[in-house]
């Protein structure tokens, strides 16, 4: 062969170059914002090796967080604490905020979203969310859909578990011509979980968390315009239900969300986004032994119904110079709800939400970077609730060289009070108008040191305080601010990462938490380990999540230390066809949760074994 290439380029094997190219062009490298908080990144390669099916498979591995079930909704609780305040976590799919209007939570439908159409996931802790142009929240879970231009073709995935659950998904991506492309996706889930029983007054009651769901998503891009359409619907059993004796009968909840999101890129780094959401929530809950109502006698049926509409417009612009990247933006959201209570009482309200924000990243020299951002939020309610103006801001400094990457961040933010807390569904009469937004200060210090190309050690400490937190009084059933009280919380964590080579890596994280009280609501400390391997045509993944024992302050039940071993093995029969097995909570010693008046403690992740078939064409 007589190639005219320069010697060093000629020697490089094309397959090696392609592998390097694939790694370097990972979308996560282009989207991550490492000045926006403590970042936990799940790349496409990681998700594929994990054979992760839903977002909960990812959330359960984030250090310092515990899964927590409320109804049948899986939320996250910071270690040692109760679940994060519902508006404290935002799930964004691309730039679309999935939060509902009445409930305020992104988890309502999206904590178990299947990941087949997701390229990678970024989880930011201690963020102000200013960089994301969304409503304020200290935790942002950002999911990025697969890029049409890279996916050209189709994929089917079919999964089956040992309990008879099934999951099927399909997508097709095409570039029609120079200007037009589309990505279309759909999945169906029929999830059967283990049933548990309670005997009470000589009757047997069943706890079920079975779920049936579908999700459709389409993305159409024409020149600089992108239109996204989404529709998700699920019907679920509500596990222990809402009754005082935890004796549910025929419980179910049906939830749906449909949305449209249009993004228009304009010259000079201008961007305009328009979006619409329509969300419904319909619950049927029965408990013959009584469901507690705050200000009226208990009831045996609880069947509220909610309808939300959200409209939003966001405009932002980036000014970029040699040393500066300044982003300025404004958004307006109209969020309304119509809620029919269990007693057929009808409540409705709406929020005009205006926000102005700016963020500047300034490069002082090659190693040193400063970030500062500010956001003014103006909340005007249609009726009954007082207007509220809230300022959030952030300042940070980042020093990075070949060996060391350090960061100091301070964020002042607040929690929007969700409509649900004002219009308590478990209250016969109306509004808790006195509720006000808790404010939060977050400090983060982190450092990552690369000993060598293979080894690195990361240390991070985050401190969070919440002033006047909203609490749910377990006796009265009401939501109220604990005025004058500041909840404090500190979490140190340490991660050691070893890369054997680009296909094989191991990491271990230790974390502990201090909540400045003698009460624990979830495990206090834990150790997470992950091992990613590839050998010939095999991908192998192992994860062990250890969480410490604790006595739950609500139920006074003792929960043993948990060990959740999850493993996945995938065999690539061809480049386009793979067969996989994924075992979840294999030893059945994973994290459990206690519920009031429920006779036992119950796993948050079922012991399951999935068969996974994937085919690209």
């Amino acid at each position: 062969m007589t190639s005219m290439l320069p010697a060093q380029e000629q020697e490089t094997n094309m397959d090696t170059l392609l592998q390097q190219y694939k790694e370097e062009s990972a979308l996560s490298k282009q989207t991550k914002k490492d000045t926006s908080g403590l970042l936990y990144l799940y790349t496409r390669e990681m998700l594929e090796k994990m054979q992760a099916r839903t977002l909960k498979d990812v959330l359960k591995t984030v250090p310092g967080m515990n899964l927590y079930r409320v109804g049948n909704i899986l939320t996250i609780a910071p270690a040692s604490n109760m679940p994060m305040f519902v508006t404290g976590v935002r799930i964004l799919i691309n730039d679309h905020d999935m939060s509902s209007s009445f409930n305020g939570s992104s988890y309502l439908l999206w904590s178990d979203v299947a990941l087949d159409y997701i390229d990678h996931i970024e989880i930011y802790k201690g963020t102000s969310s200013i960089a994301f142009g969304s409503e304020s929240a200290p935790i942002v879970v950002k999911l990025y859909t697969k890029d049409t231009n890279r996916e050209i073709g189709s994929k089917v995935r079919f999964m089956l578990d040992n309990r008879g659950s099934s999951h099927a998904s399909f997508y097709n991506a095409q570039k029609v011509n120079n200007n037009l492309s589309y990505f279309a996706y759909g999945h169906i889930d029929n999830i059967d979980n283990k049933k548990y029983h309670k005997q009470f007054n000589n009757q047997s009651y069943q706890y079920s968390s079975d779920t049936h769901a579908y999700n459709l998503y389409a993305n159409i891009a024409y020149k600089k315009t992108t239109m996204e359409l989404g529709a998700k619907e699920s019907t679920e059993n509500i596990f222990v239900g809402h009754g005082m004796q935890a004796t549910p009968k025929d419980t179910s909840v049906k939830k749906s969300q449909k949305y449209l999101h249009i993004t228009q890129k304009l010259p000079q780094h201008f961007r305009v986004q328009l979006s619409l959401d329509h969300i419904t929530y319909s619950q049927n809950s029965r408990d013959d032994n009584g469901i507690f109502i705050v200000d009226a006698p208990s009831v045996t049926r609880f069947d509220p119904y909610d309808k939300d509409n959200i409209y939003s417009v966001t405009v932002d612009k980036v000014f970029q110079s040699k040393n500066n990247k300044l982003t300025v933006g404004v958004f307006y959201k109209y969020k309304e709800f119509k809620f029919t209570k269990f007693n057929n009482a009808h409540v409705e309200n709406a929020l005009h939400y205006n926000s102005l924000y700016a963020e500047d990243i300034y490069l002082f020299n090659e190693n040193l970077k400063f970030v500062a951002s500010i956001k003014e939020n103006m909340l005007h309610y249609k009726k009954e609730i007082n207007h509220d103006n809230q300022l959030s801001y952030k300042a940070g400094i980042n020093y990075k060289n070949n060996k060391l990457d350090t960061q100091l961040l301070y964020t002042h933010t607040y929690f929007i009070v969700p409509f649900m807390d004002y219009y308590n569904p478990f209250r016969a009469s109306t509004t808790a108008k006195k509720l006000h937004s808790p404010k939060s200060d977050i400090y983060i210090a982190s450092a990552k040191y690369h000993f060598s190309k293979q080894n690195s050690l990361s240390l991070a400490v985050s401190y969070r305080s919440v002033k006047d937190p909203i609490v749910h009084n377990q006796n009265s059933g009401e939501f109220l601010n604990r005025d004058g009280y500041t909840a404090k919380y500190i979490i140190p964590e340490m991660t050691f990462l070893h890369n054997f080579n680009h296909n094989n890596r191991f990491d271990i994280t230790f974390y502990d938490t201090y909540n400045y009280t003698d009460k624990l609501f979830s495990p206090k400390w834990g150790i997470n380990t992950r091992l990613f391997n590839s050998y010939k045509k095999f991908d192998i993944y192992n994860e062990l999540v250890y969480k410490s024992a604790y006595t739950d302050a609500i139920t006074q039940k003792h929960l043993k230390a948990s060990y959740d071993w999850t493993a996945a093995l995938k065999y690539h029969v061809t480049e386009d066809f793979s067969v996989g097995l994924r075992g979840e909570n294999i030893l059945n010693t994973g994290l459990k949760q206690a519920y009031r008046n429920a006779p036992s403690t119950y796993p948050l992740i079922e012991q399951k074994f999935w068969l996974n078939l994937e085919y690209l064409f």
Partner: protein
Amino acid sequence: MKKLLLLLVPLLAFASMQDIERKICTQLISAIFQNKKTIKVYSLCPQLSQKNTKDSHIILVNTPQQADLIITNKYVDFTVDKPIFVRKYYLLQKYKNRAVGGFYWQKGRPNIIFEEKSLKKFDITLPERFQQYIEYKETE
């Protein structure tokens, strides 16, 4: 000037990705014309510009007529009958008898392909190590 590149991490990642992309393109073009000392390329791809090909044996030309090879990432109705190398999968179909090969994303991964029929048409023989990328299609 270094500052501008260092401003944001994504830019750095992008630069590294572009560098590898340029290396791959350069090797593929060289494989198509393995006996030529200099290869004249008409490029519509930003990854192959005057700046990043100045140290190689590839010369970028201003018109398709001057070129040994056209490399493109969008459909343009080229009137000259020259070999075309595509950077998008759908262009293989658009330039059915002229596309000698492509380097593009498909099914979530980067792919390299050479079309046997078009290679024959332009009397191109690839080096041994690139034979694995040749697609042999049944004659219609």
